[in-house]
């Protein structure tokens, strides 16, 4: 892991809808755009790096699940905002 000058940014969101394929894909693409930044998701005993679309889907996070996201690296604040937006905007999609 490269050393990071930014501290880890942590957010907790409650899912308004299940974390299905489409938001998982959005997260993976976001992670792909920020290659130096690590986005870790934790829901109960399950955790996943947002880069891994299959791992995120395998979390099986359903409506009402509390997801803790930890973002480290460049632009951690902005990336964490985007992650939270994707997770909470999941209500608008049925994927």
């Amino acid at each position: 892991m490269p050393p990071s000058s930014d501290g880890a940014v942590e957010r907790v969101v409650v899912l308004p809808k299940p974390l299905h394929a489409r938001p998982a894909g959005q997260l993976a693409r976001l992670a792909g755009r920020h290659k130096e930044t690590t986005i870790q998701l934790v829901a109960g005993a399950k955790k996943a790096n947002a880069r891994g679309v299959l791992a995120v889907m395998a979390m099986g996070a359903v409506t009402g699940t509390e997801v803790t996201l930890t973002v480290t690296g460049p632009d951690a604040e902005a990336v964490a905002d985007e992650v939270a937006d994707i997770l909470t905007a999941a209500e608008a999609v049925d994927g």
Partner: protein
Amino acid sequence: MTEGLGLVGIVLVSHSAALAEGAAELVQQISGGATVVPAGGTDDGGLGTSTARIEAAIDDAETGSGVLIIPDLGSAVLSARAVLADLAGETTARLVDAPFVEGAVAAAVAAGSGADLDAVAAAAEEARDATKF
């Protein structure tokens, strides 16, 4: 296909046209903009694979950054290999050993985020170790 310009293209080779098309539709939706081209069924639309359909799909999927071919079963591999042998030296297309659906999802998401052919192929191969739940 301008939305996928410059990205690695994906070709899904299946014995069933419906399976290839359905998988491509699903994967495209998840990946948001990757070029995913189905090559399913025989020339007359039956169950089986078609070298002509595979070759046309590779052509459609190529936007300058290479093409990854994901086969479903047995003879899909043989047909894809026959096409690659025919095109020897004229294509950057690469065949990968990966689960059909999970591999396609992982590859298309990687491709959609601008990964190169090596990384897209690696994403598809890693899908073999991903658990479903």
